[in-house]
């Protein structure tokens, strides 16, 4: 009798009769992750918001005082901080633009069948698998004015890439472009392979020029994925710390993340660095939001 009754039930409630209910399973699967992320991402942020209104210093045991908005006021009127932001903006623009051009260009070249394509694609991904800190360290040798292979190959004599204040930031950006163009290439390849072939065939029958095909078919169809690559790389470039920190000590290459690190863990100005962290955070969120809005617009078209 019981078995007959069970077969009449829908699958979900039958399963529920034997094991945990779907609701239990759903909660079991989702709640730990949410709790974990809140505890280790949101809670620390609230904690540091509190500290940003104090003159707390983590290396001293003296009691700290509530200073209100003083940290924020000092930071926003500090020319030094603003120059860090300008440096960061320059860095983001140069390195992200470079990665988009090199990465998308490589993808356009790779988007055809030829022998050993898989192997070459995998080899091209090697730079992004390395530790940025170690890459930065090693590019010091490549850029070395006296025995570096770069100056030798390009006949630049003893041009000191990393200690010249004018070139240090761009030298770091070049390394970053080398490291992350493969990422843009990978995403672009995915986008290019998704363009329906029949569109190209139709264009070929109409004897459309390469440029026309590229601007009217390829570009509009891959632009959403290019935007995704752009968002990811802009966010990451804005946060850059490791590669620049290990490559050069030039003040003209002091990105905002490096400034933040120094303020927090070398000068131990904890309260003020929490405030700076908040300013950076708000900027990241603002940039991301702008992008997401634009992305949604592009998708709607």
């Amino acid at each position: 009798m019981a078995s007959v009754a069970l077969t009449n039930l829908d699958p979900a409630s039958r399963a529920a009769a034997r094991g945990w209910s779907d609701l239990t399973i759903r909660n079991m699967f989702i709640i730990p992750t949410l709790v974990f992320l809140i505890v280790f991402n949101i809670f620390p942020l609230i904690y540091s918001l509190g500290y940003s209104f104090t003159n707390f210093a983590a290396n001293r045991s003296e009691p700290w005082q509530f200073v209100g908005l003083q940290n924020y006021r000092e930071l926003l009127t500090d020319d030094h901080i603003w120059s860090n932001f300008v440096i960061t903006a320059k860095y983001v623009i140069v390195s992200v633009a470079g990665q988009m051009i090199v990465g998308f260009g490589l993808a356009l070249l790779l988007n055809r069948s030829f022998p050993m394509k898989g192997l070459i694609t995998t080899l091209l991904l090697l730079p992004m698998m390395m530790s940025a800190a170690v890459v930065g360290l090693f590019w010091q040798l490549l850029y070395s004015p006296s025995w570096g292979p770069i100056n030798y190959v390009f006949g630049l004599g003893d041009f000191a890439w990393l200690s010249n204040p004018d070139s240090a930031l761009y030298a770091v950006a070049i390394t970053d472009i080398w490291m992350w163009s493969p990422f843009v290439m990978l995403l672009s390849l995915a986008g290019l392979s998704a363009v329906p072939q029949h569109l190209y065939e139709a264009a070929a029958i109409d004897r459309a020029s390469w440029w026309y095909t590229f601007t009217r078919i390829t570009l509009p169809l891959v632009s959403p994925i290019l935007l995704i690559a752009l968002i990811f790389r802009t966010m990451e470039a804005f946060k850059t710390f490791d590669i620049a920190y290990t490559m050069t000590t030039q003040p003209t290459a002091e990105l905002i993340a490096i400034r933040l690190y120094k303020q927090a863990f070398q000068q131990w100005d904890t309260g003020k660095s929490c405030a700076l962290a908040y300013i950076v955070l708000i900027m990241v969120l603002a940039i991301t939001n702008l992008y997401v809005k634009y992305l949604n617009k592009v998708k709607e078209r």
Partner: protein
Amino acid sequence: MAAVRTSSEVALNRIAIAAVLIATLIFLAPIYWIASTAFKPKELAVSVPPTVLFEPEVTPFVRLFTKRVQMQKTVDPQAYEAAPWWEKKIYDGGERVLKVGKDVQLSQYPDRFMNSLIVAVISTVLAVGMGTFTAYGFSRFKIAGEADLLFFILSTRMLPPVVVAIPMFLMYRAVGLNDSHIGLIILYVAFNLSFSVWLMKGFMDEIPKEYEEAALVDGYTRMQAFFKIVLPEAATGIAATAVFCFITAWNEYAFALIMTNRRAQTAPPFIPSQIGSGLPDWTTIAAGTFLFLLPVAIFTFLLRNHLLRGVTFGAIRK
């Protein structure tokens, strides 16, 4: 592409392939330089003009793994004869390997390498595991405010590591998690989890619901259906996600620099800290870098097909 191929199209194709090969060579040149420096005699690493062809040596690796001191006087010929080959290499370079009794003193590198391995493997397993469960939950069940929750999960990845590191440093110090493996593992899981959930959700959405429903009709419980039907189907996604999480955790620098100093320090902050003052020994640094790249390169190579598919999946579904 098109059925008719004109001679100009063929020529264009050839030029494009040649360009790809040249670009590949340019991109690989720095990696070749690191790998080759790891096998160079010390003086060739900083030679003018730079040395491309040379007789490879393993001395940099011996130096990487041992603690040594500069020799004060010339080595006793008998001791030299009795020494193993790799110790002779060190003697030839004007150094002596430190020993306690008969035991060779190892440098800190093996320790740091093991720390990296422990932290990266455990955090990857946890991040991918939790991410898979959560992605299944989001993919199959109705959840109030699902889009907002997913955006919240993604937003945790937007935070610059240095921003999170300041309060985490204070909290860790309060509970004694500073400079511990567990502390670093927790941070890396928190950092990778959002990515893992998003990528896995793309894969879970691709697996037809009917598979589990059929299993439920056959008398499986929901959990059995998940483990026996859904998980095997999601293998490609799990592999791709694991590669990405492993690469991130293996190479992470900022958290490791701030949160560890001796016991749990990983290789990324360790290798640059060895540069010291004066003329750096690039061959030993290159050897350390080369060995450090190997696990990721092998892991990625083994899972390369999943990786390419994984990216394509997440990116194309809009």
